[in-house]
C-alpha cells in the first residue's frame, strides 16, 4: 500500500536562502513505519495525476496556513489577517483527483477544514480555548456519534483528544455528517463515506489505530 501525504509550507524568518520549506512531522514517519506503509509526500501540484496513480489514499496534514475566507465567500474577520501561504488550490486539486476515483481521503486539523471548504462548507475564523500547548497532557472530551467510522475505530462515545487549532468547521459541507463534537459544541469530526476529517492530531497521540483502521476500512 502507498499513501500520498501533503507536505506543508513554513517560513523561518532570517534563514534565507533556506527559510521556506515543505515539511512533514516526524510523527507520520513513525506511525507509517509501524503500519509498514510507504508514504509518498507531495509538494507540488505538477504531475499530481501520477502521484494519484501510485497511491491508494491521501492524507491532508495539519498546517500553519489557514484557508483564505474567499474560498468560502466570506470576508476576513477584523482580528485575523491572511498573509501566509495559500495552500488551498494545491490541496483542492489533490482532493479532487483522489475523490474522482473514489480513493479515501483523511484530513487532519487544517485538513478537515480544507475538506469542508472544498465540498462546500464554511469555517469559524476564530474560536477560543481549542489550542492546548501542553503536549498530550491537556486534552478535552469529545462525543463520538454511533454509526460512524470513528465509532468503529474507538468503540466508545466519549474520548479525550488533543487540540491545537483556532479555526473550525461552521456550516458542514453538503452530504457530510458530523461524527464528533466537543463539549463546547465545536465540530471535531466530519465524514462522508471514505472521506473523513478530524479536528485533532491523532498522529501526535501516536494513534496508529485510527490510521490503520482507516486504510483497512477504505482502501480497496
Amino acid at each position, binding site marked *: 500500500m502507498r499513501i500520498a501525504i501533503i*507536505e506543508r509550507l513554513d517560513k523561518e524568518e532570517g534563514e534565507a536562502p533556506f527559510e521556506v520549506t*515543505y515539511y512533514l512531522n516526524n510523527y507520520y514517519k513513525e506511525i507509517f513505519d509501524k503500519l509498514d506503509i*510507504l*508514504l509518498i509526500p507531495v509538494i507540488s501540484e505538477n*504531475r499530481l495525476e501520477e502521484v494519484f496513480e501510485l497511491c491508494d489514499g491521501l492524507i491532508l496534514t495539519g498546517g500553519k496556513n489557514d484557508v483564505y475566507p474567499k474560498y468560502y465567500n466570506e470576508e476576513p474577520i477584523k482580528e485575523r489577517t491572511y498573509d501566509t501561504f495559500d495552500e488551498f488550490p494545491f490541496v483542492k486539486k489533490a482532493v479532487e483527483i483522489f475523490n474522482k476515483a473514489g480513493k479515501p481521503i483523511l484530513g487532519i486539523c487544517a485538513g478537515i477544514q480544507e475538506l469542508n471548504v472544498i465540498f462546500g462548507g464554511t469555517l469559524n475564523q476564530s474560536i477560543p480555548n481549542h489550542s492546548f500547548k501542553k503536549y498530550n497532557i491537556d486534552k478535552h472530551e469529545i462525543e463520538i456519534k454511533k454509526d460512524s467510522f470513528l465509532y468503529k475505530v474507538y468503540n466508545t462515545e466519549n474520548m479525550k483528544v488533543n487540540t491545537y487549532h483556532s479555526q473550525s468547521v461552521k456550516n458542514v459541507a453538503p452530504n457530510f455528517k458530523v461524527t464528533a463534537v466537543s463539549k463546547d459544541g465545536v465540530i471535531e469530526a466530519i465524514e462522508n463515506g471514505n472521506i473523513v476529517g478530524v479536528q485533532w492530531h491523532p498522529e501526535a497521540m501516536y494513534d496508529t489505530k485510527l490510521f490503520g483502521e482507516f486504510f483497512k476500512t477504505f482502501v480497496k
Partner: protein
Amino acid sequence: MKVAIVGRLEDYEEDYPFNKRYTIDYPFREMFDVLNILIIPILSRINIEEIESMCDALILPGSAIGVDPKYYNDVPFPGKEYKYDEYKLDKEVIDLFVKAKKPILGICGGMQTLNVYFGGDLNQNVLNHQLEDNSKHKAKIMQDSFLYSVYQKEDIEINSFHRQAVRKLANNFKVTATSEDGIIEAIEYGNIIGVQWHPEALKDIEFFDKFFKTFVK
C-alpha cells in the same frame, strides 16, 4: 522523470509539539516544476526499494546536522553536536541507487555524506565558508569534468553555507572544483556527483537539467 530526495530532519523548538520535521527546501519544488520532474521525498527506510525502482535518480540535499564522525572513525569537534543520525537512512538509500547504477547528486551535507560513504572523511571545522545569502566566492573547475560540461569555463562563483568539508577524498573520486582557500568544492565519480555549494538556492536550473540529461538513462 521522477527523482527521489531524502528529507532532512530539523527541530523547530518553538513549534513544539510539532517541532521535529522532515523538510525539503522550497527551491527544489520551483526548479523541478520547471523541469517537469516529479519529486518523491524519502523519510523512512520502509519500502525504499519501491522508491528506488520508480525513480530515475537520487538527490541527497544539505543537512542541518552533518555526518556523525563515528562513521569515519573520528570524534566530534569540540562543541559540535550531532543531534539526529541521518547517515543510516542515507546509507541505505545510496546502497540501493548505487546497486541500480542510477545517478546520485549530493549537495553540501549530501556531498559530505557521499564522501564518507565511499571511504573518505571530513574536516569538521571549516572557517570562512558561511557566507550571507546572495554572497559568493570563487571556485576553480577542473576541465574534463561533469561540472565543466555544465559551465564551460574554469572560474565560477558560488554560494557557501557550510562548516564541514571533504578532508580525505573517497576512493575512486576526483576533485573537480576547489575554492581559492583550498576547500574541496566538488567531487565526481562517474554518475555520482557532489557539490559543496547550493545550486538550488541559486536557482541553477541549467546545472540540474544537465545532470539529469547527462546521467539519466
